[in-house]
């Protein structure tokens, strides 16, 4: 809670301050304990790792994530279509798209995206989950060569993969992240100019506390206890201000968000803030941005 407050109270940063803060932080990381990653919450990673053998049970603890899939895939397809991506092959609607799935877990969302033609790179901090994801992907020969799982964290991955992906995806991840601002900055740095960023997360409302934590974790036991920490949830307004600090010309970018009530969860889905405007903004800040140079 405190983190978010301080984040949202920050003034909208310019390209310059962005550069300064980021380089400071990066220096900090390298100078401090190399094992300690600012975006990763070790407790969450451990919690999810314990579920690695249950990840693909569609009726198990993670059924809510499975149930969200049709919505999430459609979200990505529609989002890309909205920025002018043309589907050439009707059964491979994402053919030719390079996607980075940050916090892919066992690959619940990476697999369907790869199955419809995308070249998906999934990264996760948990080695157990990456192993589970790889094992499961091997069961479907049609995924061969379309999926690449890497055990890493975004702060390690991003510097080597600048402007690599057409789209990046952090689905149901940001609510588990410690330093959200840094996380987003690293994520954005891997996107090609004009690319898309898809974020889906649980809203920070009374009903998400009652439904998503009290009911789903404690009463109905739909999801394992300790999956979510309400204090780390983020509201659309907080998300917007966070994005404003990450992308200087954010205010000009259009944000589409909608709330969907599903499986006792109130979610906020933030669409594509991208295309020409992002490209333009990227162009302007180019000389200042440590990620681009």
């Amino acid at each position: 809670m405190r983190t978010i407050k301080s984040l949202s109270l920050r003034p909208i940063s310019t390209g310059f301050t962005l550069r300064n803060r980021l380089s400071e932080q990066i220096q900090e990381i390298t100078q401090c304990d190399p094992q300690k990653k600012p975006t990763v919450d070790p407790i969450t990673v451990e919690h999810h790792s314990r579920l690695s053998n249950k990840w693909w049970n569609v009726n198990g603890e993670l059924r809510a994530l499975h149930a969200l899939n049709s919505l999430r895939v459609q979200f990505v397809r529609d989002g890309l279509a909205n920025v002018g991506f043309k589907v050439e092959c009707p059964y491979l609607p994402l053919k030719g798209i390079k996607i980075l799935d940050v916090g892919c877990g066992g690959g619940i969302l990476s697999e369907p995206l790869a199955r419809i033609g995308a070249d998906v790179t999934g990264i996760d901090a948990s080695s157990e989950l990456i192993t589970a994801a790889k094992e499961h992907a091997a069961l479907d020969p049609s995924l061969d060569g379309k999926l690449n799982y890497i055990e890493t964290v975004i702060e390690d991955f991003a510097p080597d993969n600048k402007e690599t992906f057409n789209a990046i995806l952090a689905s149901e991840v940001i609510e588990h992240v410690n330093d959200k601002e840094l996380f987003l900055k690293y994520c954005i740095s891997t996107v090609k100019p004009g690319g898309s960023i898809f974020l889906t997360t649980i809203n920070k409302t009374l009903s998400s506390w009652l439904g998503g934590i009290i009911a789903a974790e404690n009463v109905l036991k739909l999801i394992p206890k300790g999956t979510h920490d309400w204090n780390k949830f983020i509201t659309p307004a907080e998300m917007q201000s966070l994005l404003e600090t990450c992308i200087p010309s954010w205010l000009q970018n259009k944000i589409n968000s909608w709330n969907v009530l599903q499986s006792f969860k109130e979610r906020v889905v933030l669409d594509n803030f991208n295309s020409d405007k992002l490209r333009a903004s990227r162009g302007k800040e180019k000389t200042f941005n440590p990620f681009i140079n």
Partner: protein
Amino acid sequence: MKQYQVFLLHIYVYKCFIPNGSILVTRDYSISAKNHENYDIIITGGGMVGTTLACALANNRKLECKKILLLESGKQFEYKFEEKYSNRVVALNQQTRTLLSSIGAWQHIKATRYCTVQKMQVWDACSDAMIVFNEDYLTKEIAYIVENDLLLHAVNKQLIDKENVNVIYNSKVENIKLPKTLEENAEIQLQDGTKYKAKLLIGADGVNSLVRQTMGTQYVKWDYNQMAIVATLKLSEPTENIVAWQRFLPAGPIALLPLTNCLSSLVWSLPTTEAKRLLKVSEEEFVDSINNALWKVYPKDGIVESGMRALQQLLEGLSLQTGVVKQLQPSVSAIIERSRAAFPLQFGHSVSYIQTGTVLVGDAAHRVHPLAGQGVNLGFGDVTVLVQLLAEAVINGASLGDMTYLRKYETLRQRYNVPIMFTIDALHRLYKGTAAPVVLARSLGLQLTNAIPVIKKALIEHASGQIGNR
């Protein structure tokens, strides 16, 4: 790491030049075709519904990459056009016609023969109640009468061109193993020992569906102790034959469906013993029985008569339609030689249509009394919805056996099928009796329905499959 990335990119570029990802498909078979032949979808049962489903799946652009196997236990169907009409006909609704048009089969039917029903008259033998659908010919056609054989032939003709569909005739299924999880395949073994595997098994194998039995789902059924006699009839005098006639008799409904200006098709539901007797009697006697069933005046109960008169006055007072002019039903002069046949009537409904990687369509899932001519249309409705949802599964990157989509199919279809099935069953029960209160109630109901345009329109729309699919 960086080099690895470059390598990946290289593969990616390479694949772009291979159309339709065919390299992946070939790989799929070479890896796991050790002793099973692999498919994406297996359909058991190559009847009208199963064959249409195979064709509709292959025809959908989102599913065109899927390899489909159609297993038919009978021998390959050879259609020979005969002047003589087949005694097995179906009444297709608008939605079924749309489906057949979309797979290109309707053009073959159109080029051969079919008959359009533009008006339908249903009346009660025990009272003056009746209902006429589309008496003003304002809406489009109500139904299309097509011979079963011709329909199957038309669909088969379209299926031949589909490269991704393999049809195996004379294939007797010995054993079925259904998947328990999404990662498993459905496995099917034929009596000759060949085995096939697929992500999705579709049971279109009719009333005694082996797929349904393997699923172990609960199946609600009852026997009507009735048989339906079918035959091709010659009318006494040629007319503009565009009306479907149905008269509710105490023993069961008799229906005449138009074929040509001088031919009609008979569907007559009767108690089993009576039906068996009528199958044996001479053709002359049979024709007499039909005319009797169409024309015989039954004694009318005084209570019913007065009740109907009261309703008539009420409707007149409300200036609602009080009953259109009753058109006189045709008489029959003869039956086409050896066109008599009968089949038992049952009600059956599978409580569940689906299971992971398994789904039932058509008669395998539901069977109804033919009195409303809806049975096959419900099956074709299943096809339309299932194809849509499987296409949705594909573009969402889900496995074909994913319960998310199958469950949607089940919900949509049961929500549509069950009310129709129970309405038909209820109609059957309602019209079985001759007790005055029952006759009065149904007569008032029928007359009221006839008089209130909104209800009538809703009925027609539901029967033609226009609503209820989404």
